[in-house]
């Protein structure tokens, strides 16, 4: 039976190597030792290294960032790990998913002193701290079409086959636009609005990337001059355009915008977490937000970059719905929308 012993020795050594590799890697990535604060956020999160350096200089804490899919995935993770959180602070949960986290009670109440500089309409109770907001708005191709004056206008023959939206079941701006129509036409009227919109040739794309880069006339040479996107898309279009531009080729339609507000919340009862939330409301972090994440700072004292003041139109009367209302109806609305739009 010599050969079996030989096999064993070979394979056992492989196993030992494997175990060594595992043991090595099992050393926890984010060392949650003294002086480290862990931030869980979504994949779109970005902030500059200098900002974190300032945080460390001011507080003595190092930051460890965990990224975790989109806002919906992030929310679910927080609920699933409520009893043993992976992070001290959660940031990036928005008002379309906030109700779910509040229902599950994942946050520890904290009211930062910095809240004084945040407008009342962005706040959502003692559990969470508003950090930024962005408006999901129709964008239009300035060279191809006049902007509509109302959501009703989109039903007219003038806008036939001109609009591309995203599937609300799979896309955050798609869901926001559906909520905008519900906020406008109410529980009794939104389905009729959508039936007429579909008769008028609205195109439904699976996600924002396809809508913006394949179907929109400006983004990628598509044939739809109206797209559901963000109020911050025109400045982004200027910053990331092929040639230096003096004027944005796209504009924001001022009506029918839905406001997404992103919050931070405390997952562990820790001083590190509280000082991170305080810092996120401070000017260093707030003024770093626009050019990294293309949303607007919640702190009214934060100065905006010139591209934002020049090319972004913040709608004066964005639509909103209460997070609790969204939470109790979201799935039904999406199902009903799917039935009428895709079946």
């Amino acid at each position, binding site marked *: 039976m*010599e*050969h*079996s012993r*030989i*096999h*064993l020795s070979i*394979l056992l050594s492989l196993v030992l190597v*494997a175990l060594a*590799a*595992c043991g090595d*890697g*099992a*050393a*926890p*990535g*984010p060392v949650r030792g003294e002086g480290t604060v862990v931030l869980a956020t979504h*994949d*779109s999160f*970005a*902030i*500059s290294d200098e900002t974190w350096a300032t945080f460390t200089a001011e507080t003595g804490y190092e930051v460890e*960032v*965990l*990224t*975790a899919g989109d806002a919906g*995935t992030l*929310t*679910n*993770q927080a*609920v*699933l*790990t409520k009893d043993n959180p*992976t*992070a001290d602070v959660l940031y990036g949960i928005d008002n379309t998913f906030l109700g*779910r986290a509040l229902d599950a009670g994942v946050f520890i109440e904290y009211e930062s002193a910095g809240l004084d500089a945040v407008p009342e309409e962005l706040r959502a109770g003692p559990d969470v701290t508003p950090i930024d907001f962005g408006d999901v708005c129709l964008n239009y191709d300035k060279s191809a079409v006049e902007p509509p004056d109302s959501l009703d206008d989109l039903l007219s023959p003038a806008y036939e086959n001109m609009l591309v939206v995203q599937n609300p*079941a*799979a896309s955050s701006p798609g869901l926001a636009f559906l909520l905008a129509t519900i906020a406008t036409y109410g529980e009794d009227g939104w389905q009729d609005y959508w039936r007429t919109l579909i008769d008028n040739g609205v195109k439904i794309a*699976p*996600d*924002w*990337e*396809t809508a*913006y*880069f*394949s179907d929109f006339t400006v*983004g990628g*040479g*598509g*044939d739809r001059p109206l797209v559901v*996107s963000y109020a911050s898309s025109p400045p*982004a279009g200027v*910053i*990331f*355009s*092929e040639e230096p531009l003096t004027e944005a080729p796209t504009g924001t339609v001022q009506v029918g915008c839905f406001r997404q507000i992103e919050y931070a919340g405390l997952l562990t009862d820790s001083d590190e977490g509280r000082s991170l939330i305080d810092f996120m409301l401070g000017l260093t972090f707030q003024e770093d937000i626009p050019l*990294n*994440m*293309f949303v607007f700072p919640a702190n009214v004292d934060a100065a905006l970059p010139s591209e934002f003041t020049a090319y972004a139109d913040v709608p004066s009367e964005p639509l909103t719905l209460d997070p609790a209302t969204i939470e109790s109806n979201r799935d039904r609305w*999406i199902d009903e929308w799917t039935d009428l739009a*895709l079946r």
Partner: protein
Amino acid sequence: MNRPGLRWLAVVPAAFLAWFYAYPIVRIWWVGFVTGDDGLLDAIGTAGVSDAAAFTVAQAAASTALTLLVGIPIAGIFARFEFPLKRTIRAIITIPFVLPTVVVAAAFLALLGPRGTLGVDLEGTVAAILVAHVFYNVSVVVRTVAPLWESIDPRLEAAAATLGANRWRVFREVTLPLIQPAVAAAAALVFLFTFTSFGVVLILGSLEHATLEVAIWRRAVGAFDLQGAALLSILQLIGVATLLGLYGRSQRNRRVQQNLLAARHTTRRARSGPERIAVTAGLTAVVIFTLGPLLSLAIQSFGGLDNPTLSYYSTLDQRDFAFAVPPTEAVANSVTFAAVAAVIAAIVGGIAAAVVAYERTSFATVFDTVLMLPLGTSAVTVGFGFLVALDRPIDLRTSFIIVPLAHALVAIPFVVRTTAPVMAAVRSRLREAAAVLGASPRRAFREVDLPLISKALGVGTSFAFAVSLGEFGATTFIARPERPTLPVAIERFLGRPGGESFGRAMAMSVILMLVTAASVALIDRHRDGDF
């Protein structure tokens, strides 16, 4: 042969699967059933679910058949002929396998969309799903089937031809039965891969078509109905297990031991005119099919043909913007994760393949089936399972190793499926002959089995590497330390409006392609052992 030590070695892969697969998914199901509120059967009862189940099976079966149809002839060309740039072409056809869906979707829409260059609009059709699945998986067939095929003694085929059989009959009655284990293995891999297809179906498919994978994702992420998601993923798993059981039974009595030869003895240049034409035509077709979409991406990364520019590449490293990952950093992260994942998959999968190949018991058959299950399990189930299960005894949820672990889980079936058929086919008589000639068992194994096996293991390892480069599996659903990989860097550019963002995303995609081709070619070169 009786190898008493092997069965208990199954402990290694079994423990791996128990800890990183079975325990997490059972935990998340448990959470689903405990927290679920009402209407246990609501999720199953709706018409949507049976539609999704039927569509899932139908599209996977059609995709598998089409992929085999395209892949087997190409595998034959790779197995039997020497031609220039062989390794390069083999590396190129592996590239699609790793590309993010959103990038492939952009390429396909550029070619086959409403304004596509090819003039056919497949947007939102089932045809688009099938074509994309073939595009993604043709290399799975080629890489799984060619290694066994090229080890088969061509004199068997020559003998049949001498006896008057035409080419088709030689293929059907001699070659096919001999390569059958590898063909079945490739079919199983492609089926599982397309069975759990997510991004392709969501982005390229018509929006009313949903696979079970998409339905599970909608329940788990969109609706946070973990009970419904659990029911659906159990249903999905039962389907996968049933099909794998059938596959295992069909394979059990069909093992053929044969004299496997090293490739240098079996491949040659195309000789006759028709042979040259067939080889050239086959290679040209697959290269065009693969390179078409890849080229359209590459062209967009240079800003189009009219006004080509290098600016997207030269401005990729944008340290002014925190979201932009410097390309060197993305490449380093991707390659590190992939190397670790490939090592884990090669070790665990290699041991598992040995158990499957050398144990001739029903235990081995069942074990084999279980090994394949992770490939047929929804990524969101595994990902959320990791979150609720891997915090004890050590908290792995936020450690570096979680990413390669998630990748290895998907990669292990590839290692097993490419290695086990070759291991099983090595003739024990060869080993015995070596023993009679005075070789120690160690030497017999080293000089007879090992060269053939290590080659197959090399194929499996390069798959594992590719699986990880393409970020397959649960990684999008677990919280991970911020080490952005190439696919993540691509998605970040795609998330910003503006022509430069799109161009840079395409440039980053081209870098991913080059990294894939280079690393796969490097691993292939090593396994060929001829440098």
